[in-house]
């Protein structure tokens, strides 16, 4: 990852005989809190993962909760109590997530403070056209279009998956398109961009400049090119602002993890009296086969 050249001076400082030691620092104990994780897909089953936080010293292999009581509402109308599946997952199979609706969740568990949250679901944005182009020896470029509603502020996420015969596996992709603001540029050295390096989300803020045509590319080495007829699936997620913030904060969190001296970043959470995320998305996808 060439962007790391940016940190040449930092590396230089480290070369000045820096060293690493293990520390004995007293860590204060913390009371556990509920952790709610749920990304609701429109037209999908309602699923929620519930666990509790654990302090640094009290590491346990599994913090998932099986005894949580979860109440979920749709447009403030009670849908029911979610049923425990396994490993902290709860679901309500009787209902699919509706678009343009609001969902409220309230989770309680013995000895833990009750946590709650709310999210609005959104509509799917279809991919209008998709095409590909081989560039040079090792690049495969995909170009696609979709209709963004310019009146409202929209957030999106793109995933590209390659078919392996039995399933789709994710593929790393890059883009010099301005909407990613350099986050997916291979050669970018901008410090700010690299804090978000690898983020696949974007806002429609810059779409007005370029229209709604987006190009991404992959390297052949990533694309399992031994297969003569390679199938790819491009997924366009229309996501809520909380989803966008969560994805970006997670990316910054991990990118910054190995960069010392940066201020700490926490994960975005919209859970009251707890941790986690309760957000939604609507997905559109197109497949394309490269002969």
């Amino acid at each position, binding site marked *: 990852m060439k962007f790391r050249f940016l940190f040449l*001076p930092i590396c230089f400082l480290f070369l000045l005989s820096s060293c690493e030691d293990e520390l004995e620092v007293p*860590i204060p104990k*913390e009371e556990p809190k509920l952790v709610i994780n749920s*990304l609701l897909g429109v037209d999908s089953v309602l699923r929620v*993962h519930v666990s509790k936080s654990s302090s640094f010293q009290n590491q346990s292999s599994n913090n998932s909760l099986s005894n949580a009581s979860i109440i979920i509402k749709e447009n403030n109308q009670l849908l029911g109590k979610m049923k425990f599946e396994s490993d902290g997952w709860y679901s309500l199979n009787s209902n699919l997530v509706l678009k343009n609706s609001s969902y409220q969740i309230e989770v309680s568990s013995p000895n833990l403070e009750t946590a709650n949250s709310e999210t609005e679901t959104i509509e799917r944005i279809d991919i209008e056209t998709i095409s590909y182009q081989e560039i040079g*020896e090792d690049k495969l470029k995909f170009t696609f279009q979709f209709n963004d509603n310019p009146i409202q502020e929209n957030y999106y996420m793109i995933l590209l998956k390659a078919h392996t015969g039995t399933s789709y596996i994710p593929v790393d992709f890059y883009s*010099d398109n301005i909407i990613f603001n350099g986050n997916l540029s291979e050669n970018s050295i901008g410090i700010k961009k690299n804090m978000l390096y690898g983020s696949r989300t974007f806002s429609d803020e810059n779409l007005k400049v370029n229209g709604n045509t987006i190009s991404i590319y992959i390297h052949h080495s990533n694309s399992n090119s031994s297969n003569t007829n390679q199938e790819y699936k491009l997924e366009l997620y229309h996501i809520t602002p909380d989803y966008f913030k969560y994805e*970006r904060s997670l990316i910054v969190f991990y990118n910054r993890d190995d960069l010392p001296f940066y201020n700490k970043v926490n994960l975005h959470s919209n859970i009251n009296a707890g941790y986690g995320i309760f957000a939604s998305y609507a997905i559109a996808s197109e497949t394309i086969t490269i002969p």
Partner: protein
Amino acid sequence: MRKFIALFSFLLFSFYLYSQESSLHKQLKFANISYPLHELLHEISLQSGVEFSYTSELNTNQYIELPALTGNLKYFLNEIIDTKAFKIISKENKIFLVGIPPAERKYSISGFITDSNTGESLINASIINLENYTGTISNNFGFYSFSLPQKLQQLQISYVGYQDVIIPILPKQDTSINIALEPKNILNEIKVVADEKSNNINHQFVSSNTLTSDKFINSGMFGENDLFQNLIQFPGVQSSNEGLGGFIVRNGSPAQNLILLDDVPVYYSSHLLGLFSIFNSDAIKHVKLIKGGFPARYGGRISSVLDIRMKDGNTKKLGGDFSIGLLTAKFNLHGPIKKDKTTFNLSVRRSYLDLLVKGIFELADSDITGGYYFGDFNFKLTHKFSQRDKIFFSTYWGGDLIHVKNTDQQTTSKEKTENKLGWGNFTNSLRWNHVYNNHLFGNTSFILSRYTFLVKDKKWSQNEGENFKENYKYEFRSGIRDFTLKSEFDWIPDSKHYLKFGMETSLHHTKPGSEIYQNNEQNEQSTSNDQVISSKELILFGECQIQFGKNLLINMGSRWSSFIVEGTYYSTLEPRFSTQYHLHPKWTITGSFSQMTQYLHLVTSSTLSLPTDLWLPVTSKIKPIDCFQYTGGANYAFSKSIKFSAEYYHKLSRNILEFSDTYFFQNVNTDWENTVEAGKAWSQGLEFNLSKNKGKTTGNMAYTFSKSFVKYPKINEGKTFASPYDRNHDFSILLNQKINKKVDFSLAWVYGSGLPATLSSTNISTISPYYPENISSTPIFSHRNEFRLPDYHRMDFSINFRKFKKHGVRTWNISINNVYNRKNANYVSIRENQNQFGTTSYTLKQISLFAFLPSVSYSYKF
């Protein structure tokens, strides 16, 4: 009835005063411009009807040149009678001209104090009347003025590091005397003059320290004479992260320090991410650090003022020096262009690591080349038009550049990429000094300050048999530009009063970031020009230093600042007050109150001093930072050279900013208001300082005990927590020993208790944003600054070996940073460890920079 009598009496008294005064307002008209005094008085009597009565001391035969032919009586009397020798008393229709006894007559003495060898003006030199131990000090341009009675007196002019001069003087009229002081030939004398309290002189020293650059110790990395590292010897001053990222004063952030280089505010003051300050010691003459009790002429930042003055240049002869160390090479040349009239001072510094790295890459025949360098250029031109007029032009350019080039060879094509990252300051000031009269000195400055940050990415591709073709280009620019016009005056009516007043108007242009993007492969091109944020600032200030009796000195003043940005208007009246009282020749107590306002916020995301840090003006949502500081202290002089001081401070700040828990970079340049939270901070501390500044052994010992807290409504659940600069104990000791003329050494030890740190100490389950069925574990933090880093301590050693040669002095310097190889924690993080069974555990790791680090440098002064 009583009321009537009182009113009648009052009216009668008023009429009496008016009738007395009205005779002085009678209009006069003269036919000639010149008269003998007795004729003139007679003519006045005829025209105005007043009678004159005077003593024989008045020389009535002298000829008087009239300044005008018409005017009132009062005007003419003040012009024709020497009011310093005669009192004018008006009573009914008579005017008495009463001679003042010679011992009571006062005349002003003014001029400039300079170094006799170089002609450099000396700042804060003291002028003391040995008769009664009253006096004054020279200002930032070496100008002084004060009054003396008409009798033979001894004036002592002194400046640390220079031979005292005693001048016998019998003033008979207002006199201008320029004084040149001879430097003492004592090597390595530390010129800490802040606590030099030749008491009773009109010298304010509350919460301030002064340092001259020629005695900087080699305390920076690689033997550099780094200014910021020298400042940490003072109480209340500490480095932020082992020399990285500026300095901290009384628990304030580095962004709250106003750094002035020849009156120009400097926005980015570090090279190499904060490892070195941008100030080349070769170009610096004088540095003053003010931590509290701020005079009204300073403002704009809330924690401290670092007033740096560049050398003017030698007025007598050409001189200079050069040096080469492990990291940088420096060159300085100064001298007269026209002797005693026009001088210059030129200093250049450059790091040369990139040249070495480039050579290594070339030797290795690498596809990648790159490097980093920083450089500084200081130039100052001074011209003296007359004894009363002087003009100064000073400029500074300094910058850092990182560049990386990469060539990727494929079977039939080639791709070349180039990345550049650069940042730097460009400051200019044009100043005009004018001595209006013996009591009034003026300085008018026009100032330009610019800071620029630049990113350039380019890609070229070349197919077989073709030339390279540019197919990708990206450019980003951000920065700030200031234009300032400032006019300030020193008015010294007598030795007990010193007034400073002036105005300042500034235009700030902030460029949050403009981008040019061009992708020829995809035929895409866009230019996103940021909107320049223009803000205007108008400042009026006035301060008055008054000596009450022999023991009490008070400085009071006020600063009115107004700030206009995009339709939002802020205005603040900042009162300032400081006082010092001499209880005893050896004891002085001090106290102060000051309010400071800061209209520019530094948006930063790191504890390092990064070039991406952005200065942004206040908005309608983000309000200016206000700080109220109270200090109280005592000073004790054991002897002329050994001084002790103790000072307590209490600071309250509001509208300080902190990034919210979940901020992340999403157009910080435009959306920064939404990523920060405003809160309050309060700090208090007790500082002790013991210093010895004369003799072969000199040194300084400082200890500070302090506490500092912050509170933000939406951070840390609204609970109070330790500020990032809450170092409870801070101790430093510095020892300088002169062995002989050729050898001297210095030893410095600093200790600081651990700074607070935020560490992730809670584990939560997190859902993958890409695969909502995947759950993993992520450590997060639930409280801010809950941990303490381990204590910090370090010892540095530096020794100089000099050889006096025919044309100059050669010096070898050997320095050792961190003599006993202390591993101080610069950064602490939590590491996830997995054993062979897949069980995850977490440990705390510390990263230490700058272990035992020896360095050597060679310099030659001619």
